[in-house]
């Protein structure tokens, strides 16, 4: 049923929920299509059949049957089926089945004008503390406290999100300044990042970036990989608040993590600062 989507132009879906979300988009569109075509045929036939030149005298009573109530009832029933059969279960999974931090690859995303800070907990799997007072846009945009218990091995990237394929990912989403929306179009993931709130999002990618790129060969999209889009007006740079998403095979992902940990050792506390050695007062 969802094959029709390629005509709809949706990007190829590559997450564990994308199939079901696409399915409901298609089902609702079938309902719309049936109603529209039904109305449309009735409309055109009426206009032709009852034009003034053809039908000089109108019929005071018009249609006397009440089949239209059947139509309305049918629409109601179909909508109920859509809600209870599809929409509610999908949503329940989305908001109730958030995996525990131990059962998933646990990442924090902190949005800010106009960048995505991706915070990884490091080898201990636990995030260090972050504090507003420590925020320094140059050296420490997320305000990470390196001296906190779990903060030593944390690292973060800017606009570069790396995840493993076929693994549950849990992202805790927040924002430093205004409302943004963390959208991964191909994974059918979208969630507002709201300052003052931390909202968990979870998903499982079902193919790697490499595999995804193969599906794009020969289309206008050829060679353009996965991205994080901002889908909520967040200021003047909203249109360019773009991040990149790379989905690795599990081994490659581990290698990437090690590589990041390596940088951390090389650069000591000042990881994340690309040009100079800053002061050590945090």
């Amino acid at each position, binding site marked *: 049923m969802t094959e029709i989507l390629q005509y709809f132009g949706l990007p190829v879906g590559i997450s564990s929920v994308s199939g079901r979300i696409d399915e409901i988009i298609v089902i609702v569109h079938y309902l719309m299509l049936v109603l529209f075509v039904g109305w449309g045929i009735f409309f055109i036939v009426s206009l032709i059949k009852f034009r003034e030149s053809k039908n000089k005298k109108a019929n005071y009573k018009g249609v006397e049957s009440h089949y239209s109530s059947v139509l309305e009832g049918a629409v109601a029933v179909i909508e109920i089926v859509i809600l209870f059969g599809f929409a509610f279960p999908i*949503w329940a999974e989305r908001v109730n089945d958030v995996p525990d931090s131990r059962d998933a690859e646990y990442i924090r995303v902190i949005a800010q004008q106009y960048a995505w800070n991706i915070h990884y907990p490091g080898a201990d799997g636990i995030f260090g503390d972050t504090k507003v007072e420590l925020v320094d846009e140059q050296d420490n945009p997320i305000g990470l406290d390196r001296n906190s218990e779990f903060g030593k091995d944390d690292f973060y990237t800017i606009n570069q999100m790396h995840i493993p394929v076929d693994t549950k990912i849990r992202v805790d989403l927040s924002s430093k*300044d205004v409302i943004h929306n963390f959208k991964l179009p191909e994974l*059918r993931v979208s969630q507002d990042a709201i300052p003052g*709130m931390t909202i968990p999002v979870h998903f499982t990618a079902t193919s790697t970036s490499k595999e995804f790129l193969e599906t794009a060969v020969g289309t206008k999209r050829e060679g353009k990989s996965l991205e994080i889009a901002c889908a*909520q007006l967040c200021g*003047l740079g909203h249109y360019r608040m773009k991040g990149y998403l790379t989905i690795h095979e599990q081994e490659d992902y581990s290698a990437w993590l090690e590589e990041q940990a390596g940088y951390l050792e090389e650069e000591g506390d000042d990881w994340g600062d690309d040009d100079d050695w800053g002061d050590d007062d945090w």
Partner: protein
Amino acid sequence: MSNDHHHEENFIQKYVFSVDHKIIGLQYGITSLLFLLFGFMLMMLMRYQIAYPETVIPYFGEWLFAGSGGVMLPENYNTLGAMHGTIMIFLGVVPLAVGAFGNYLVPLQIGAPDMAFPKLNAASYWSYFVGGVVMMASFFTPEGAARSGWTSYPPLSIFESGQTMWLLGMVFLITSSLLGSMNIIVTIVQLRAPGLTWFRLPFFIWAQLVTSFLLILAFPPLESAAILQLMDRLVGTSFFLPSGLVYAGSPVEAYGSGSPLLWQHLFWFLAHPEVYVLILPAIGIVGEIIANNTRKPLWGYKSLVYAIGFLGFMSFIVWAHHMFLTGMGQSMSAFFQLTTMIISIPSVVVLTAFFISLWGGSIRFNTPMLFALSFLPMFGIGGLTGLPLGVAASDIFLHDTYYVIGHFHYVVAPGTIFALFAGIYYWFPKVTGKRMSETLGKLHFWPSLLFMNGVFMPMFIQGLAGLSRRMYDGGQQYAHASDVLHWNEFMTISAFCLGAAQIPFIVNLIISLAGQKSDDRNPWKSTTIEWSAPSPPLPHVNFDSSVEVNHGPYEYSVPGQDEDYCPQTSP
């Protein structure tokens, strides 16, 4: 102060600070049409930028965007977007549909000499006028006009420039709507002519009544919210600011512990009913014109009345379907999805009844009817495309994409705007005593229909590809947009052609105004009461004989009668 016996009015009293509902209606009509034109022009600039991002805008660029060599900057785009939305809704469509059509027609259609509170009526117009002036003036302040979207979500709106003037302007506009809607409600309840029972009211009157209830109940929360936001900006409160914000590199000095989502609830508590405020008067107009031009009663008149009453009621409990992605849990999202699906049923009832009304008619295809007829499928598209947005699971993907822009524009542009055009063509003879040209009318209609679809249909394609709205560069940055960007140029050209297609309308208005008056009070052979008044109706009293109502609103083609219509006032 003249004390003479005839209450002679001077020009100012008669045309400027008038208390006659017809003059006030016309004031509303002219002002709002100008604002619609202005909002349209802002949109054309945006469309140009979307199709040809960051190029010099021909002719106007050098003058409008002098600081950047004629190229539109992101702040300009965001300003244009926020102000296009604000102007179209609050200064264009609502004042035209409620202020102009409501004011002019409600007293006439219920056989009353004027509105219940004529001075309040004038106050409502002037409050609207001041609100419009404040909004316009904001373009010329050093901060410029608002640029946080018409939705003005905090914290962004509290940090961004231009918002103070926007909020002040909104306070005046809301006040105007509150005064106006109160007046319409009282007028309909109190001033109906003898014999005009509730179920003899034209459908248009019902639509205005429900609309006014929506305005009066939904606007106060936004008015208070606007004042709270104003305080957050001006006196350092934090109703909408949480603690721990870091903006532009430094911690925000604020008390904190406010909630950005509080604004969204208050805003959408108004703004969802507002959508029905935009559409109900249009539905009312279309109902009148369809009954008249099919020469038969509106099918299911009573169910139509109940349907829009129910629609109005339900519109107060669907607002959070705009907020599915704000972290909403299962039960709340289920509630709002359910109410949203429920509200779709009365909309289906209305549309279906209108379609069925055509069956058995003797359909005349004049210009008002063409606009009214095309309203049906266009509003149909607008309404249907609301379904996948009201189902939270599909909204995950479609939220804030061009699909949304396409959806609500089908409702308000080829929907409401077409209905308003239909209404202008239909009641022009009543207002002026003159007729509009049918040829020019058709020259206006067909290209408008074509180009409307040319602008908005591709938005669904773009939205399904995931293209986000409110993009300064039209989405060029994003890989997932690459397949659908080529539509932008097509849509922009359609938008410009749509603009050109309005020229016959303007020419038609001018030529017709200069034309000959006719004595025919009822050129469309209509049944409703306004057509028994002289054209134009007499100042302050409307009717030249007393009005008594003996019939329902749509007694067309009554079996056994020679004439195919029986006016409500005939014995």
